[in-house]
Every structure is written in C-alpha cells, then in structure tokens.
C-alpha cells in the first residue's frame, strides 16, 4: 500500500531527474549543432574545451558569482535589519508586513521591465529624478552599471524572502529568556550578539542556500533587460548557455556549459541538504 501511494511521485521525479541529466551529459560528448547537421559523432572533451576557452565563459562564471554574492549579502543583511526592526509590535505592523513581502510575488519579467524603464530610465526614470533633485548627474544604469542594475532588481525580489523567513524565526524565540536578559541589564548589542544571532544562525544559512540555488540560474531579468550586455558585462552562466543553444544553435557546447552549471549547483545543494537533513532527525 505505501509503495502504491509513493510510486507516482517517486517515478515521475526519477524520470524528471535522470532523463535530462543523462541526455545533457550525452549531448555534451557529441557534435550536435543544429546549423551543421553533417558534423556528428563522438566529440570527446571538445565541447568542454570550446566552452572553457570561450572568453565569455570566464566572464559568465565571474558574473554569476558576483551576482550571487552581492545579492545574498544585500538581502541577508537588509532582511535581518528589517526583521529585527519589525519584530516588536507597532501600529500597522500587519500592513507593513504585506507591503514588505509584495515584491516577492512580482513575476521576474514585470520586475525587470518595471526597473528598466520606470525606475532606471536615465531621463524620465524615478532614480534619475532623485539624482537630479540632489544635483547629481543621473546614471545610465543599464549601460554603465549593467550587472549592478540586475543585482538591484533581484535583491528587490529576494529581500522580502530573507526578511520573511528571519521574521518568522524571530517570532519563535523564547520571550522569557529575552526578558530575563533585559532584567539582567543586557543592552541591545549584547542581546543581538548572544541571543538573536545564535537563534538566527540556522535560518540565515537556509536563506543563503535557497537563494544560491535560485540565483545560480537567474535568467528572465537578464533576458528582458540587458540581454547579457553590453558585451558580456551582465552575462551569467544561465544566459550564456541559453545564448549558445538557442542563438548559436550549438547544443553540444551548450550542454557542456550546462554540466558546469549542474556541478556548481550540486556543490551548494550538498550543504543545504545537510542542514535540512539534520532538521529531519529531530
């Protein structure tokens, strides 16, 4: 009976995992270019060599990691600050929560267009107006700071996520312990350092890991705004693979890139699964 109930989920997930993985590895080892149907056969490491020696590849890896590290830093630190701020009650806390979480529910393409045009347009955009108000020269965001612009968009989306998770975790803290610490004259910094931070260590690591998994394959925001440019300045690994496959039609080389992306994601996943696995034991 349990097997019968489990099997639909297990079988479909197994297919979903094994088939694409096996095919990606297979494609990466053969010549497979939609524009050159004549060249076929085993390619050995050729596709990997081609991918690695492509100067865009190292740019893409660096951009992927920069995007990841900055977004995680911004969202975790910002989310922590906001979560601590609204942990205690104040008038309108419920509404503030709803406002704060909203950007997370905005689809990536709308997020990207909203920022690209209405916020970051160098002439009419809101940011340009703010810059002008302070007597500064407006920035041409997507031209001059393409990667940073994408980081802003993605942080706007993920800050609410980090904030919500940390907020939820703070709610489960032992009130009496905190009050006891206050009685004993602990100041805010001491409470933060010795009570909040240890309590938040695990949720923070979970937030980081989840974000890493999602941020490794950021795509729509780049696709709708910068198209990876100018040059390769905002090309990440996901976009590079897409470009190689659906613009250059080279499935073989793109698959080699995909294998790198899978390896990168798995390194991260191992850590996350450890953390969550520990939780299961309890």
């Amino acid at each position, binding site marked *: 009976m*349990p097997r019968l*109930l*489990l099997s639909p989920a*297990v079988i*479909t*997930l197994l297919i*979903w995992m094994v088939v694409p993985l096996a*095919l*990606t590895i297979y494609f990466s080892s053969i010549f497979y270019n939609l524009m050159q149907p004549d060249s076929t056969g085993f390619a050995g490491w050729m596709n990997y060599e081609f991918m690695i020696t492509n100067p865009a590849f190292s740019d893409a890896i660096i951009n992927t990691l920069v995007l990841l590290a900055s977004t995680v830093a911004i969202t975790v630190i910002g989310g922590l600050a906001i979560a601590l*701020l609204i942990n205690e009650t*104040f008038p*309108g806390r419920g*509404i*503030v929560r*709803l406002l704060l*979480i*909203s950007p*997370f*529910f*905005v*689809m*990536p*393409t*709308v997020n990207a*267009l909203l*920022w690209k*045009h*209405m*916020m970051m347009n160098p002439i*009419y955009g*809101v940011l*340009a107006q703010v810059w002008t108000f302070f007597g500064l020269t407006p920035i041409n965001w997507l031209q001059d700071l393409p990667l940073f612009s994408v980081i802003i968009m993605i942080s706007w989306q993920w800050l609410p*996520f980090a904030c*919500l*998770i940390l907020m*939820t*975790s703070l709610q489960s803290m032992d009130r009496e312990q905190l009050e006891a610490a206050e009685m004993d004259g602990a100041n805010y910094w001491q409470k933060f350092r010795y009570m909040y931070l240890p309590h938040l260590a*695990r*949720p923070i690591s*979970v937030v980081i890991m*989840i974000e890493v998994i999602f941020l490794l*394959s950021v795509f*729509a925001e780049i696709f*709708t705004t910068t198209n990876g440019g100018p040059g390769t300045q905002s090309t990440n690994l*996901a976009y590079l*693979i*897409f470009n190689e496959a659906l613009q250059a039609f080279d*499935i073989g080389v*793109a698959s080699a*890139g*995909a294998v790198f*992306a*899978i390896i990168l*994601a798995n390194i*991260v*996943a191992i850590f996350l699964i450890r*953390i*969550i696995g520990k*939780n*299961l034991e309890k």
Partner: protein
Amino acid sequence: MSTKKSKWTPALIARTAAAWGIALLLFFPLIFMGFTAFKTELQAIAVPSLWAFEPTLENFHVVNERSDYVQFAWNSVVTSVVSTVLGLLIAAPAAYSMAFSPTKGTNGLLLWMLSTKFMPAVGALLPIYVIFQQLGLLDTKTALVIIFTMMNLPIMVWMLYTYFKDIPHEILEAARMDGASVWQEFRHVLLPLGIGGLASTGLLCLVLAWNEAFWALNLGAADAGTLATMMVSYSSPEGLFWAKLSAASLMAIAPIVVIGWFSQKQLVQGLTFGAVK
C-alpha cells in the same frame, strides 16, 4: 510587561516611522506602476512625476486588444491551476504514506526529492527542449503543465508531509478501529484535517507556477505563452509606452500578489522545506 496598551514612547515612534518608511520605499515601485497604469502616455513620462491627474482606463483597453491579454491570462490560469491540481494529486498520496507509515527509507526519500529541486533549469533545458520538439509539444500548454508540475512536486510533497505529520495518529487509528475503509478514512478524517495544508500548499505552488519565467519563455512562445511571456513583448520601446507597460504589468501581477498575501505564511514552510517554522 502586562501593559499591553503601548504608549507613544520615542522608541516606538522611531520604530514605527522607520518600519513604515522602509516598507513604503520597497513598495514604491509598485505604487508608481499602479499610478502610471492610469495615466496617459504623455503624463506617464512627465518630469517630475505626476501624482494628481484624471485617471484613464484607456491603457487597459489598448493592452487587451494589442497583446491579446485574455489569451495569455487564460494560458497562465490553465497552466498554473492544472499543474497545481495534478501536483497535489501526485504529492498527497506520497506525503500521506510517508507521514503515516514511515519506513527506514522515508528520510532518505524526502532528502532525495529535495535534491531533485537543485537540478538547475538550464541544465535540463536542452534535453527537455529536444524531447518536447520530438513529441511535438513545443509551445503547448501541456508542456508547461508537465514542467510546472515537476518543478513544484518536491515542494508539495514536503509541505504536505509536514502538515500530515502534525495530524495525530490516534485519530486515524480510532477510525480504523471503528472499521473505516481506506476511502472513508481519507474522506472523513484526513481530508477535513488536512484541507488547510492542501489549500496552502496549492496556493504557494499556484504563485510559483504563475510567476515562472524561464520555462515559459523558452518553451512557450505564441500559443502557450503565459503572462510572463506576454510581458516580454513590452520590453522594447515603441514610442511612448510606459502607461501601457504599467497597465499590462498590473493585469499580470495583481491576481497573484493578492493570492501571495494569503499564502505568505506557508511560503516560509514551503520554500525552506520545513527547515524554518
């Protein structure tokens, strides 16, 4: 400690102001978008931005005609609802089995399911694209339903598992003692107790499917495009277009942001696979 009525101490005033300030700042782009949707194109790009104007519904009509909003919205509704229902049908029995008759392998199985979530989408894109091309499924709603279901299945199993685990086993045992069949047990005990969990799992997955952009952009173009795809046609400027862009955006996100507000608590459980409660 017992004085629940808060007095306006300086600290409270500062906290209230800071919290509202930050919340409004983060929400501001959406407010701006909401206002722009009701402006004329000329008003939309006025510098400094207009905040008082006579609202017009013109943009919504234009968007509706120009990009066939109803078609895209229908695709979004169909793909997200069908994938959610299908996912629940597959996930619920599995979660039920793992929660009520756990075996030695259950934890391992749960972790393995979680691990499938970490196959990056780009890693699977090419095989899926090629397979769907062979099957003639490119640019069909069926393709997106399959993808969205698989994408959310691990999250569904995990969420339902954590909900089902909280249902006291004694109740089920009592029902069995009284001679309830599996179906009766499901219908009269499990369903009423688990309906909250099913609903919130469904809501979260609805949001995730609705907002999915990677697969929607790569697999659905003309016929099966969802609202996430429709928005791309607004990415290149065609004359003055901010007001129309805003109207289209508003129509694309409004339903799901509202659903998101209702499922925000579940989001924590679902997306962290129960690691944060």
